[in-house]
């Protein structure tokens, strides 16, 4: 039996209440967890793809409710005055948990013309819109959380934003000080955009795991693809970075996102990558 529950803000003792009985709120999300993308901040998700967090119940940001056996009888019914205080709803469907964040925008209070036998006006007050897709799904059997936007689910799973990494000013400074980068006069730490900060956080790790020889070869590799857009000084072996777009290309290079198609020899950049297992 599938039920719908809600989390009520400012209820300390009993934050979870039952909203609907015997109803399946969302269409079942059938995804193969092995095709979901482990969360990486700079990944551009395909329309039909989901990020995943495996072994979710072991994580600090997992909510207690998901760790124990769920029993609908233990939850009280939603009271009328709690309706406006719902922070998220979740539908328990066949053992899995489908979450939807409730923001002020999902409450509607508008005049609506409803078409039934004849058209009539409905003053809709106290209505909540249910999205066609849940914001997150916890697949109990696989102990995996899947979601599409970390920003959306971070209000449901407090602390999940620790998965999000963005380079701090200090990290950016360290990266720009790397031996293969020469900064143009007008470009500095403050000019580095947010997307590039995410990429720097990841590129730092990649650089750390590289040998000195790989690093030297990396410069040749980048130069091979970007000799028109990025200037490599042959004497100092430094790329000159004067714009955010140039830094982006350089970061793509560090992540080895340039490639040539085997048939047709077209040079390409992959703006999102995923390891094939």
């Amino acid at each position, binding site marked *: *039996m599938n039920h719908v529950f809600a989390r009520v803000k400012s209820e300390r003792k009993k934050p979870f209440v039952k909203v609907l*009985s015997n109803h399946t709120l969302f269409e079942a999300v059938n995804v193969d967890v092995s095709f979901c993308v482990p969360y990486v901040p700079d990944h551009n998700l395909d329309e039909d793809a989901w990020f995943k967090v495996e072994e979710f119940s072991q994580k600090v940001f997992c909510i207690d409710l998901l760790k124990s056996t769920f*029993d609908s*009888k*233990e939850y*009280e*019914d939603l009271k009328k005055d709690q309706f406006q205080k719902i922070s998220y709803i979740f539908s328990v469907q066949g053992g899995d948990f489908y979450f939807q964040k409730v923001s002020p925008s999902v409450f509607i209070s508008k005049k609506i013309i409803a078409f039934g036998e004849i058209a009539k006006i409905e003053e809709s007050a106290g209505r909540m819109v249910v999205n066609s897709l849940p914001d997150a799904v916890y697949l109990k059997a696989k102990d995996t959380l899947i979601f599409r936007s970390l920003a959306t689910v971070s209000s449901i799973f407090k602390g999940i934003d620790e998965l999000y990494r963005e380079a701090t000013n200090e990290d950016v400074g360290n990266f720009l000080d790397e031996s293969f980068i020469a900064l143009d006069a007008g470009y500095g730490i403050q000019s580095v955009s947010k997307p590039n900060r995410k990429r720097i956080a990841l590129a730092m790790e990649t650089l750390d795991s590289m040998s000195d020889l790989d690093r030297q070869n990396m410069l040749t590799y980048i130069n091979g693809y970007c000799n028109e857009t990025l200037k490599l000084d042959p004497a100092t072996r430094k790329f000159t970075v004067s714009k955010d777009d140039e830094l982006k290309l350089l970061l793509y290079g560090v992540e080895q996102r340039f490639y040539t198609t085997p048939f047709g020899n077209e040079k390409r950049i992959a703006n999102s990558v995923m390891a094939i297992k």
Partner: protein
Amino acid sequence: MTNIAFRLLLTFNATSLLLIVFFAQNKMDLGHFFPSCEWLAEVPKLISYLAYLSLPVLLTGVSIWLSSYLGSDEFKQGDVQSIEHANNSFLPSYLGYFFVAIGVSDWTTLWFVYVVLFAFTFLSQALYFNPLFLLFGYEFYNIKTKNGVVVFLISRHRYRKPDDVCIQEANRINNYTFIEKN
């Protein structure tokens, strides 16, 4: 709103025996209430009292039928940690109603006592123990779930072991009380 109306009905059913005992104690038959119908005066008192009793019995039947419109939950195998038969534990408190009703001698006292009793039964939330359910073959159980939550179950089935309790659909009368209709 509908839920409150339903709970008022249950409270009335549970407390109505007090009124019936009072009417019987003071020999108030149907002829007493409807003096204009002269033929009622001929009807034996026992018939009158049975007629009074039939009203809450009927309403209890209605409430059981209505309960299928309430929200529902299920009891899965293994959900229940312990089960305790509760039919008998309520009898003493229910007998109290009888003694109170026998002690009441006038209308003012009756209404006062009844209103107080009604209010407390309604607000007690935990259970609407109504022995008339027994007439319909229902049994009462205190159930403790695996996570330690205690609920009250009204069911026609004779449960003895925690594992016996496996219910597809149990309707929720309030947050602590469930009724299994089938």
